[in-house]
């Protein structure tokens, strides 16, 4: 039997995903599937240099090639620049004066076929003056280093300095103080669907854009500004999205500017589809970071203070780096109580492809460092890893109370203790930890970790999600939202929430893809915000529609509206359920009684903002999340001590506090995917290798991403905390598990071998030399 949660009709139990049928039958159309009459193919001309001045671009030969219909360069955009926020607009659609990373776009072509477009790109002659570059933050910070942006001295992209409490005093009073440096590499997001777009102009000042964008209202706003159009004339129609994981599918790529511009020039639809090579060389990557972390604890292992210095490689443009660095810092005060905290963050421009958000955004780096260091300290103190976590874990606040961290982060629910306890019990932790397993050249170990992530992320400016519930006269329902399901399952939970509130079934609700001409504006799919905020919008819209119907029912039954209830498609009087009518009948009466009603429920989210306000990124105070998920994880590894090859075994358990699992199997699979595909994979396999700005492994053979063979079948346990700020108690699911896997694995490798791998990923060669050094050290001691 499937586990069910709460006493509900629709939510809290397994439900089929509303998009499942379309996806398995192939009915679902992705951007690359779109074909339109007269459509042209676009292609991008890219720079071979990582840093060079552009002296001249000659497009004449390309224009003369038969079949070429238009060529565009950055000049056509009249100095337009864009960025993640107003003050950080530092990027042009195509570089005009200088390229800042290898394969940055400098021009684009539209032609009658892909091959001709590609040939035409080869015919574009660009004269460059190569410039010396900076390829990591340590080069970038040097006195006199070449500048990536002439107006950004020192190549500093983002810098934060926060102090909460008195860390120096706390370190002086600590029994044990440790400082370590941890490193996380640049990583690919891992979506199967590469960027793709089709754009056309149905009228001289009307743009239609169908792109693989997880946050369609980003291009809606950016393209309106770029082409000087009223927002009402920018129509972004959302195709199905082949997953996202942050960054590229929120932000713009060269193809997102090329298609509209080339379509404008030719008067025909233009399509561009990135190859896997384009994606792996130019799409946004996870930031490489160097985390220096200093922590002081009492002799009982109670955390007294943490100082973190985070140095990041931001790449060529700012993109979301201000948010990344904020998230890297803010989470240091949870899931454990921390009375004193200091944070210095430095994010540098380099001549590498830009870095940006990736699942587990920011927290992933520093929580990895902190949770591995916690194990190191536990060992020095002779404490068990589970015990030290339990001693420091934030308690679940009493109902009605809110816990506040030293940097002003608030939470009404915190299930981390329960998560830790559940995982310890499910893995038989103490026993397991004691039994050292060595079989031939294989050594086994188990590691523990705990993590957190913000759900319902809110940034400055527009934050509300909205929904429209349109009740049709036969009782069926159209659900309209601006929130995007990029594969995470949010369409299903939003429909389920609406169905639960209205008292109908999931199958009664039909959800449309986002179309900015019809759906309400939405911030986007990032920061685990959709279920929490679009979910609240679903609730509010459904309640609005229900209120309108209940009024009609009350008249029919001659009772007050408060006395009417709708459940399982039956409308009845609460005190006398015999007095009832079917849902369809109520809807028909409402719509057909002269003059007839049009039942449209509308709602938007208010949660989080109204209660707790917004975070101040530069000061590091306040809430970025509406609420916070918690995770504990134990992972077992098998280490081949002769080769350094590490595998994560099936003996891995995660407990996840997502508040309330609206669709439990979706939570479980998201948690497994987050923990395995982007957690285990980050710990053991994935890394872009670079040489002077050039990506050395831009294909999926050399950029190692594990397959099903390597997937541990992690067990997922639910911890239900019913968060008051989430719809039906929900928080976020699975970004937390993306953050808990790397420390659990690194701690497990230590348990198996006695070697600490502080820079991810623990690829075989790295582990091999570390084991060899350890062996030699032991021999010297003897």
């Amino acid at each position, binding site marked *: 039997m499937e586990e069910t949660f709460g006493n509900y009709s629709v939510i809290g139990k397994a439900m089929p995903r509303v998009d499942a049928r379309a996806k398995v039958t192939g009915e679902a159309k992705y951007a690359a599937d779109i074909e339109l009459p007269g459509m042209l193919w676009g292609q991008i001309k890219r720079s071979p240099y990582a840093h060079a001045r552009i002296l001249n671009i000659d497009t004449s030969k390309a224009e003369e090639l038969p079949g070429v219909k238009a060529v565009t360069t950055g000049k056509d955009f009249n100095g337009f620049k864009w960025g993640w926020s107003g003050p950080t607009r530092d990027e042009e659609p195509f570089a005009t004066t200088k390229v800042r990373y290898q394969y940055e776009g400098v021009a684009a072509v539209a032609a009658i076929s892909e091959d001709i477009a590609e040939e035409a790109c080869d015919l574009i002659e660009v004269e460059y003056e190569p410039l010396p570059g900076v390829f990591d933050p340590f080069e970038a910070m040097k006195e006199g280093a070449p500048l990536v942006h002439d107006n950004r001295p020192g190549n500093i992209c983002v810098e934060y300095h926060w102090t909460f409490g008195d860390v120096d005093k706390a370190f002086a009073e600590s029994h044990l103080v440790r400082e370590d440096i941890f490193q996380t590499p640049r990583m690919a997001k891992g979506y199967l669907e590469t960027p793709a777009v089709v754009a056309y102009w149905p009228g001289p000042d009307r743009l239609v854009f169908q792109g693989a964008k997880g946050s369609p209202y980003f291009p809606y706003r950016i393209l309106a500004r770029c082409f000087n159009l009223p927002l009402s004339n920018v129509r972004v129609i959302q195709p199905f999205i082949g997953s996202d994981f942050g960054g590229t599918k929120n932000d713009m790529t060269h193809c997102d500017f090329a298609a509209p511009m080339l379509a404008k020039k030719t008067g025909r639809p233009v399509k561009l589809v990135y190859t896997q090579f384009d994606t792996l060389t130019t799409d946004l990557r996870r930031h490489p970071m160097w985390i220096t972390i200093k922590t002081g604890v009492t002799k009982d292992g109670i955390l007294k203070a943490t100082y973190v210095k985070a140095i990041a490689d931001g790449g060529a443009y700012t993109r979301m780096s201000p948010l990344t660095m904020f998230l890297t810092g803010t989470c240091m005060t949870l899931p454990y109580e921390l009375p004193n905290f200091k944070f210095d963050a430095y994010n540098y421009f380099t001549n590498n492809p830009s870095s940006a958000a990736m699942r587990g955004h920011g927290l992933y780096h520093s929580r990895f460092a902190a949770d591995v260091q916690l194990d190191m300290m536990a060992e020095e103190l002779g404490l068990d890893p589970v015990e030290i976590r339990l001693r420091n874990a934030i308690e679940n606040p009493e109902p009605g109370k809110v816990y506040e961290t030293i940097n002003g982060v608030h939470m009404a629910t915190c299930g981390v203790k329960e998560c830790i306890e559940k995982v310890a019990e499910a893995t038989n932790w103490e026993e397991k930890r004691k039994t050292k397993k060595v079989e031939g050249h294989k050594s086994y170990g188990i590691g523990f970790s705990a993590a957190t992530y913000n759900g319902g992320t809110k940034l400055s400016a527009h934050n509300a999600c909205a929904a429209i519930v349109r009740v049709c006269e036969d009782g069926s329902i159209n659900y309209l939202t601006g929130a995007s399901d990029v594969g995470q399952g949010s369409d299903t939970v939003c429909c389920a929430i609406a169905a639960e509130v209205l008292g109908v079934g999931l199958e009664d609700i039909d959800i449309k893809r986002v179309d900015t001409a019809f759906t309400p504006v939405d911030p986007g799919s990032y920061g685990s915000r959709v279920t929490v905020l679009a979910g609240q919008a679903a609730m509010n819209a459904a309640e609005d529609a229900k209120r309108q119907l209940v009024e009609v029912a009350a008249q029919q039954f001659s009772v007050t509206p408060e006395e009417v209830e709708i459940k399982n498609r039956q409308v009845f009087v609460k005190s006398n359920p015999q007095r009832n009518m079917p849902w369809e009948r109520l809807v028909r009466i409402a719509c057909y009684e002269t003059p007839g009603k049009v039942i449209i429920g509308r709602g938007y989210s208010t949660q989080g903002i109204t209660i707790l306000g917004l975070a101040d990124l530069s000061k590091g105070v306040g809430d970025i999340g509406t609420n916070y998920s918690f995770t504990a994880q134990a992972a077992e590894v098998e280490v081949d001590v002769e080769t350094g*090859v590490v595998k994560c075994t099936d003996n891995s358990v995660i407990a996840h506090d997502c508040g309330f699992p609206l669709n439990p199997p979706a939570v479980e699979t998201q948690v497994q995917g987050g923990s395995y595909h982007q957690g285990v994979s980050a710990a053991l396999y994935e890394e872009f290798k670079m040489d002077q700005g050039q990506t050395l492994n831009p294909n999926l053979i050399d950029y190692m991403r594990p397959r099903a063979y390597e997937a541990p079948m992690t067990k997922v346990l639910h911890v239900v905390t019913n968060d008051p700020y989430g719809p039906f108690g929900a928080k976020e699911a699975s970004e937390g598990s993306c953050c808990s896997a790397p420390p659990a694995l690194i701690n497990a490798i230590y348990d198996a071998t006695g070697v600490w791998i502080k820079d991810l990923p623990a690829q075989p060669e790295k582990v091999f030399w570390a084991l060899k050094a350890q062996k030699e050290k032991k021999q010297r001691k003897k």
Partner: protein
Amino acid sequence: MIGDFEYFAPKTVDEAIALLSKYKGEAKIIAGGQSMLVVMKRGLLTTEYLIDIKGIAALDYIKYDEGEGLRIGALTIHRAIEKSPIIQKHFRVLSEMEQNLATIQTRNWGTIGGNLCHGDPAGDPAPVLIALNAKLKLAGSGGERIIEVEEFSKDYLEVALEPDEMLTEIQVPTPLSHTGIACEKLMVMKGDMGVVGAAVSITLSPKDGVCKDARIVLSNCASVPLRARGAEKKLIGKVLNDSLLVEAGEVASTEASPPVDVHGSAEYRQEMVKVFVRRAATKALERAKAA
């Protein structure tokens, strides 16, 4: 990307050879395309004429006769070799090699002939076939010829095929009695190309247990599959024990000149040659003793 080419799909070896002779040097054979397409998509290879031989049904077979040994048609897919009961019974090492060659999807389409003709020194089949003393049958406009697998690889992605020739058959002799053969490779994930690999064949004298013959072949340690002859010498003529096998690995490591790439440094690979020669040799010795 891949560019334009004229496409042919001959149904017989003669037709294929006629096309090869006609377009001498301008034509390229494609079998499963599992290696070719990767190279073509990266723009490293273009061709005017593409001869798709996948439809030559006569080259898809596995035959066994104790005297003649094993015959595998060049178009036999990896998965067929992996799953063949004959091979599992008499040439188990070939089936084991196939189990870790790429993913099931690739094994279901890629052919043994294509693998050998691709000439990748990191490929798995050639070292095992060299350890097995196998030969290749090549057919061309001048008729057929037989060549040792060991002689076939000339350089990185270069094999001893004339422009009008194709590979038709792999011939594996029945091993001498008291022979054990095994292969091992370093994979980070199952089905990866080996970071390094070793195939080892050990033949013992039934009288005194002395090692009569040893063949040690390394993958991804040179521009072609590499016979570690120095390491073989360490073993031949001796009664084998663990420390001799360790020594053989150490000698093989000095014979190897592995590449440096994103999957490992030369130093690491050299260390790994020690491990994988020892592991394969240990298994081969066990098997020789049991045979």
